[in-house]
Each structure stands twice: as C-alpha cells, then as structure tokens.
C-alpha cells in the first residue's frame, strides 16, 4: 500500500520550519515593512510612504555606480570560478601521487572565512609591505612598490580573491561528477582521434555540465550578496570605485541611519538575485 509519510515528515521538519521563520522570514518581512516607511535612527519609524524609498533608488547617483561595480564583480567571479574550478577538478581527476595531501591543500582556501581572505589580500597587495611587491622587488621587476589596489583594478582584485576563496568547493563538486564519466568513453574518443579539446567538449562536459551549472549559480548568488570582501579588503576602494551595491546599502542603513531607504535597496538586491537564480533554474529544468 502506498504509505504517505507526511505526518511523520512534518513532525521532523517542524523545528526547521520554526527556525527558518525566526531567522529568515521574519527579518525579511520586517525589512519590507521598514522599506515602505520613512524610518531612521532619529525618529524611529515615522510615516508610511508607499514606494517612495524604492523610487529614490532609481534617482540616486551612488546607486548606479554601485550597481555597475556589483555586476562587474559578479561577472568576473563567475568567470574565474569556472576556469579555476574546472581546472582544479580536471587536475584532481588525474592519477597523482600524494593526492589526499593535494586535496587538503586545494580545499584550504575554501575553509578560510571571507574576512580572513580579505585580510590576507590586504597583506598580499599592500604597496609598502605586501608580498606581491616583495616578490617583484626581489626579482628587480620594479623599483618602488606598486599600488595594486588602485582606481582601475580594485574590483578585479576583489574578484580574484573572492574566486580564490570560492573555487575549491566548485572544484570538488565538479570533481565528483567527473568521476562518474566512464573510462571507455575517453578511450573510444582517443581512438577516434579526437583532440583534447573535443574530448573535453563531447565526452567530459555533458557529464559535468550540471555540477558546473550549480557551481556557477552558487557563485553568482554568493558573489552578488557579498559585502565582507569589499568592506575589509578595500573598504569600498579608492573613493567608491569598489563599492558594490550591498556595501552601499549597508552604509545607507548604518552610517546615514536611513533604515527605510537602506531596506528598500536591500530588497531590490534580493529581487535581482532571486530573478537571476530563477532564470538559472529555468535553464536547468530545460536541460533535464
């Protein structure tokens, strides 16, 4: 007979639902409530203003630049995560001596917190005592310390360190599906004279495309929501050049004390992230 486990299941899932409500849903609802009011540190929640705060987002000059920084950052992170994640996964799929040590080394960047990564980035890139400058100076490739975190490239460095942090988990995801590719397919392709690139495209990729897609989705979601790396590594960069929209929302909320407007910005960020994620998953559904 068909057993419906719903009663048991619900009892087991209940604590999760309660906690989810407390830790996620209620704050989101409260944030929406704030965003439709004029609310601030001075004066608390004042009057209902409908969608005025949301309209303000589109007329705020700082928002435009911050959104551009976010887009650039996310695009670069996704690209780097794909390249590095795929590369590391392919490498780990090969027979190599000392693989378990290698795996520990490769997963290490993922185990660090975004905050620690940002600080190591600061030490790495600093123009007076940074390691990168130490190498270049020792090799006499430059005379003075170079300012890496300058106006033009701060966002790129943020993306590089963020991808350094994220890619290992992607590599392991991709690796687990790489390991399901049957050996004989490779042999057959080699016998047919396929080049490395074609072997990858025709044989390997179909098996890993799902995990690659999941990795890129997660990378997008996390990068879009990231605030710690920009906060800590560049503080928003020289001027505002590496201030993503998340950091801007934080500043509006926290430093300007405008809770209504800050909440509106963060809701719009959420909407964009959800829209992007849904698009990804629609693509996914089609691939099935």
């Amino acid at each position: 007979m068909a057993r419906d486990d719903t009663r048991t299941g619900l009892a087991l899932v209940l604590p999760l639902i309660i906690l989810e409500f407390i830790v996620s849903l209620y704050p989101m609802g409260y944030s929406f409530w704030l965003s439709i009011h004029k609310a601030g540190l001075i004066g608390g929640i004042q009057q209902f203003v409908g969608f005025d705060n949301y309209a303000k987002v589109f007329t705020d000059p700082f928002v435009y630049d911050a959104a551009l920084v976010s887009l650039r950052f996310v695009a670069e992170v996704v690209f780097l995560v794909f390249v590095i994640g795929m590369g590391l996964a392919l490498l780990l799929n090969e027979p190599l001596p000392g693989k378990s040590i290698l795996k520990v080394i490769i997963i290490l960047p993922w185990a660090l917190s975004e905050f620690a990564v940002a600080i190591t980035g600061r030490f790495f890139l600093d123009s007076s005592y940074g390691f990168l400058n130490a190498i270049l100076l020792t090799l006499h490739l430059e005379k003075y310390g170079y300012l890496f975190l300058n106006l033009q490239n701060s966002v790129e460095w943020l993306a590089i360190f963020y991808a350094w942090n994220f890619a290992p988990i992607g590599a392991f995801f991709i690796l687990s599906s790489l390991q399901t590719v049957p050996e004989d397919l490779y042999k057959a392709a080699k016998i047919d004279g396929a080049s490395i690139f074609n072997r990858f495209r025709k044989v390997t990729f179909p098996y890993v495309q799902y995990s690659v897609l999941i990795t890129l989705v997660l990378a997008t979601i996390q990068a879009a929501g990231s605030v710690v790396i920009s906060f800590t590594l560049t503080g928003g960069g020289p001027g505002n050049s590496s201030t993503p929209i998340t950091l801007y929302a934080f500043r509006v909320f926290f430093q300007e004390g405008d809770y209504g407007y800050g909440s509106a910005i963060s809701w719009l960020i959420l909407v964009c992230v959800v829209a992007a994620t849904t698009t990804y998953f629609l693509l996914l559904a089609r691939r099935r």
Partner: protein
Amino acid sequence: MASARRRYVLYLLTLAAVVWSLSPVYQIIIASAMDPKQLISHYLYPPTPSFDNYLRLFGYIKTTAGGAIFGLAEQAIQGLENSIIVAVLVTVITMAATVPSGYALGRLKLRGRTAMVGLLLGSRTLPPVSVALPYYFYFTALHIRGTILGTTVIQMSVTIPIVAWVLMGFFSALPRDIEMSARMDGCNRFQAFARALLPLAAPGIAASAVIAFLFSWNDFFYSWLISSGSPAHTYNTFLTAFLGQSSGSAPNPTIFAASVVVQVLVAIIVAGFLQKYITSLKIVDPGTVAQ
C-alpha cells in the same frame, strides 16, 4: 615520450595549483613571524622567525617590537572564548534541527516537500545585507544585541539552509533498501533509522556538523553587527580592532598577521578533516523525489 611529457606537464600544473592555493596563506604565516621593520623590508621568508607576535597576542609579552604597549590581549582571548561558545551552540542547534529534516526531506514522501525545499533554497539566496540589517534593528529593540544569544540566532540563518541542503542530499543518496530490510527484520521505523541507517549516515552527519561549526567560526558580518563593542564579541569582531587603529598604539601589522593565523588554523584543521567527505556529500537535484 608523450606520456613522460604529459606527466611533466601534470606536475607543473600541480605545482601551480599548490602555489595558487597556498601563497596567500604562506605570506600571512611568515608575516606573523617577523617584526614590523622586517615586514617593510620585503623579505620572502622570515629572517629571524619567532613566536613573539603570538605571545603578544595572548598577553605573555606586553609590548610591541617598537616598545609601545600592546593592550588587546584580553579582548583577543575573550573573542576566542565567545567564538567557540557560539560555534558550539550554533552547531548543536543546527544539527538538532537539520538532521531530522534532512532525513525527512531526503527520504520520505511528503506533500509540500517541493515547497519546503524551495523555502530552503530561497533562504540561501538571501544577501546577508538584506537579512542582517533588520536583525540589527530588531535585536537592538529586544535588547539582545551584543549577547551570545543574539549572535547565535543570527548565525543560524547562514548555517541552517546550507546544512539542511547538504544533509537532504546526503540522506537521499544513501541506499534505498536499508530501512526496508531492517523493517522486514521486524524493526519499527525509529529502530530502522537508528540501527540501520544511522551508522551509514554518521560520516555525513559528522561532516555536516563540521561545516556548521566552520561557518559559524568564519562568520564575520553578522557577528560583527550584533556583537561588536560588547562583551560577547566574537574573535572575528576583535580582529577589526587592527583595521582602524590610530598610530598612537603603533601600527601592528605583524601582530595582526598572527591573530589572523590563529583564526585560520581552525580552518586548516577543518580542511584536513573535510576533504575526504566533500565528494561524498553529493549535490542533490531538487527534482529527485524519494520513492
């Protein structure tokens, strides 16, 4: 021959991967073993390595290399204690909530399962900024900002979706017939779970607990918002004291490096433990349904 060249290329790539993964960690470790004058002299390795910066961090040496008093040891130690307490609490509560639900969502046939999975997935997409700020305001009004309780609750918004997700995938990937054969042998549902499934699930549950601990230990933004400036501040929050310190206390990049290494040590240990299990914690396809 081609295979020898192939091996040579592989070794080169492996070396590149190792350098890529380790060089930022290497440089912060060597920075922690130097003193400030050496640090600005661009050494690639510590010329006179010493543990002094760690001793300073924990208060055994009271002055910096330049002779100024370093007074943050008490805050550092308190931060460490608080981080450990919070991480343990977060792990326990997270596992208590997610193991049963991971089991249910991964193996049981439920109506509304898709909705619940969607809820979990949705929580993972929330940008921290959107969740944290209402919390800040809300906890402030409830007088739990700056407490261990507040920090624990807010960190769970990170750990619960991830661990529930992982466990759901993990449980659904375990062999289907384990419980069935246990029940045929006369066990009831709970015994089937405890005796037959749990031993198999144990490594995955352990790995998930480690992940929960790691995410809590690594959390910065939420715990900074909620605990900064209070006696319940976490270790990561303490680290911000180095970021904006004015020069009267003498800039201490080397002690800063040492304090970051302490934070990172936990991550290194965890990485060593986790790498075996990462591939077994398979990703779940939200479309699969337990039969």
